[in-house]
């Protein structure tokens, strides 16, 4: 078999084909643009004083929060609502609908009123928040890549508006009648599109996967059981207060376990904490450049990519495992690892180049870059190996680990940039990095030893 044919036969070609080079370049460019704009805005805000950054914070963060909430939780609850409706489960439907209304009040209406009381017109704030919430749901209903690009484009646009102070000017005036009509029409169109696409996803696992609502699977299995139980009369659906709350959160928190509830509370705490810290303009009396945040996000980007590869691997595992020509278990491991490493390595390289560009533009210290790049690449590499060994992802431990690292690394990041003793911060960062990579590496090594074949289900 010649080199070209071997490459052609490599399963990773199939698994990695979705990360076409142009797509990676486009993503890297978008990320770099977003990073540059965001850093620019914060740098400018920090130098122009508290008023400017407050304007950005007040006008920008609540819509961001609304979008995140409806993307992570509200949109999934909405899709669950469709399914519950189709399965004629009135108890669950009765819990979900009021919950969706409650979340709309909490994430859109109340923030609009609160923002209006601090300045600006309530109508404009309401329109911004509604738009952000709709965007959050839309990003679930669109294919992953399109959703990601849309978010990046909206964030870039928002940052540009903030950077040119247009956002603050916009927020201070009332919406004109034609603006109201246009905004409402756009909102209605978006929601109709979402509803149609989510309904379609209910009928097609592939569409559901594309639209990133494949995590509905477990919940739907539970729903099927509940449906069978309710129609056979063998069991009654319970509706305790805690369950109502959890159901309202949608998958993966609907019909939850204690573990899932803990995760959901963790997400809330993290989002709140992020907003609080993002709202800080000074640390020990010095202005804070926010580029550190972007570097902190890099491992998350890497983990997301690795997660998508894992999905592909799991889907194709049964077919590949029985394919002759991939050799023994050890040879198969080697071939998949190398094949997967190629596209993901390219992805990591592009991300790294984007970061270097931003850092060069912002004149950041090189120690930062070494740390961020190593963290990202190490986690990515370990994720690939974990994927090859079909190690099950464990959301709660992984999430808690991320929060822990985040909490430890954050003060270190801040003090590193501004402390008189940056060595301590760097030491702390390297400690977190080493502990995380070490722990993850140990888990992967354990999986390696236990797994008889890389393509077998655990």
């Amino acid at each position: 078999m010649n080199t070209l044919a071997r490459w052609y036969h490599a399963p990773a070609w199939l698994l990695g084909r979705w990360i076409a080079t142009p797509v990676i370049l486009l993503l890297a460019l978008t990320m770099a643009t977003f990073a540059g704009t965001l850093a620019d805005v914060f740098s400018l805000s920090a130098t122009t004083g508290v008023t400017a950054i407050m304007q950005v914070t007040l006008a920008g963060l609540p819509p961001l929060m609304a979008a995140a909430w409806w993307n992570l939780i509200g949109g999934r609850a909405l899709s669950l609502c469709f399914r519950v409706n189709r399965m004629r489960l009135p108890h669950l439907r009765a819990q979900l609908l009021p919950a969706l209304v409650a979340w709309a009040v909490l994430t859109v209406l109340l923030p609009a009123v609160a923002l209006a009381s601090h300045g600006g017109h309530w109508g404009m704030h309401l329109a911004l928040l509604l738009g952000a919430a709709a965007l959050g749901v839309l990003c679930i209903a669109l294919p992953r890549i399109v959703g990601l690009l849309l978010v990046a484009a909206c964030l870039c646009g928002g940052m540009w508006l903030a950077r040119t102070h247009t956002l603050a000017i916009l927020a201070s005036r009332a919406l004109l009648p034609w603006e109201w009509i246009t905004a409402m029409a756009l909102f209605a169109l978006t929601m109709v599109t979402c509803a149609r696409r989510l309904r379609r996803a209910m009928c097609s696992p592939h569409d559901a996967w594309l639209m990133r609502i494949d995590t509905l699977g477990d919940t739907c299995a539970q729903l099927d059981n509940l449906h069978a139980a309710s129609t056979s009369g063998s069991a009654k659906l319970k509706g305790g207060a805690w369950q109502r709350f959890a159901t309202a959160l949608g998958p993966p928190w609907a019909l939850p376990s204690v573990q899932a509830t803990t995760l959901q509370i963790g997400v809330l705490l993290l989002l709140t904490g992020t907003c609080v810290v993002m709202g800080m303009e000074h640390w020990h009396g010095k202005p804070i450049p926010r580029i550190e945040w972007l570097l902190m996000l890099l491992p998350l980007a890497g983990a997301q990519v690795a997660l998508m590869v894992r999905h592909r691997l799991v889907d194709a595992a049964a077919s590949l495992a029985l394919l002759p020509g991939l050799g023994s278990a050890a040879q198969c491991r080697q071939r998949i690892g190398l094949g997967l490493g190629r596209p993901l390595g390219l992805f990591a390289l592009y991300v790294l180049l984007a970061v270097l560009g931003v850092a060069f533009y912002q004149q950041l210290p090189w120690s930062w870059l070494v740390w961020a790049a190593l963290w990202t690449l190490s986690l990515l590499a370990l994720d690939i190996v974990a994927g090859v060994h079909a190690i099950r992802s464990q959301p709660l431990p992984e999430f808690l680990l991320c929060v822990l690292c985040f909490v430890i690394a954050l003060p270190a990041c801040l003090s590193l940039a501004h402390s008189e003793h940056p060595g301590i911060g760097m030491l702390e960062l390297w400690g977190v990095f080493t502990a995380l990579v070490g722990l993850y590496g140990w888990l992967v090594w354990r999986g390696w030893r236990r797994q008889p074949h890389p393509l077998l289900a655990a």
Partner: protein
Amino acid sequence: MNATLRQTASSMVEPLTAHGLVHCYEDSQVLRGIDLALAPGSVLGLIGRNGAGKSTLIRILLGLIQPQDGQARVFGEPALQLSDAAKERIAYVPQQPEALAWLTPLQMFDYLGRFYPRWDHAFAKATLARWQIQPNRVMAKLSPGERQRVELIRALASQPELLVLDEPAAALDPVARRELLREIALRAGEAGATVLFSTHIVSDLERVASDVAFLHEGKLLLHCAVDDTKERYARLWLPASQRAAAPTLSLSRRAHEDGSLSLIVERNARGAWPEAAQLPGARIDALGLEDLFVEIAE
């Protein structure tokens, strides 16, 4: 040993065997000590209720899942460590084909065909046309039935000696189902392939299977030839007055509101029904395959 002898010895090896397979998913035990052996050239229909563990059993038999206990062997090799030579002789169609969905059927055949020495390109193309599947459409955009048919073509084109189908007819229309059954019968009859397929459709099983196995509550019941089931198993009906005399060994036991009892019983080694069948008022009813399964499963 010369080539002919080696080939004969190879063909005599049982394509699939399993001993004491045990598997659990979290707190539910799906398989409780399954023993199974497929004779070369046989067509075994595996039947069972939803969630009985049919797919799990099939995946363990092929080495796709590591069982918690027991061992499966394919062509004499441990299922978890199959050689390329053994893999060339196997074709497997999962219940929900999800792999390689971003390729068109032709691309997939071109790709997979290179792995199999006996790949029949002509058959793949001809069947694709005969089943009216668009060859240049990405598989993700095909209907579930079309996806399943593409997978079936893929499996058959590799000319396997062991064909394993997990609910192959679930998404097929009656015409496609009939075609599939004809192909299975052809492969088993002419090419001597061994076939294992799981299904809910008993009529399919009666049409092509030579043997049947019923997976119920983690155990294999009724593993026998399809033609034997009517002869070996029957329903024994006992009136309320004779309940106490009911045999202790039965595949299922159901009490009725009027106090009578019906049991699924098996002939003993001498070919006789249990003694209770001779009691006054007792009755033996012959059962079709479907009735037999319903009686046991309910």
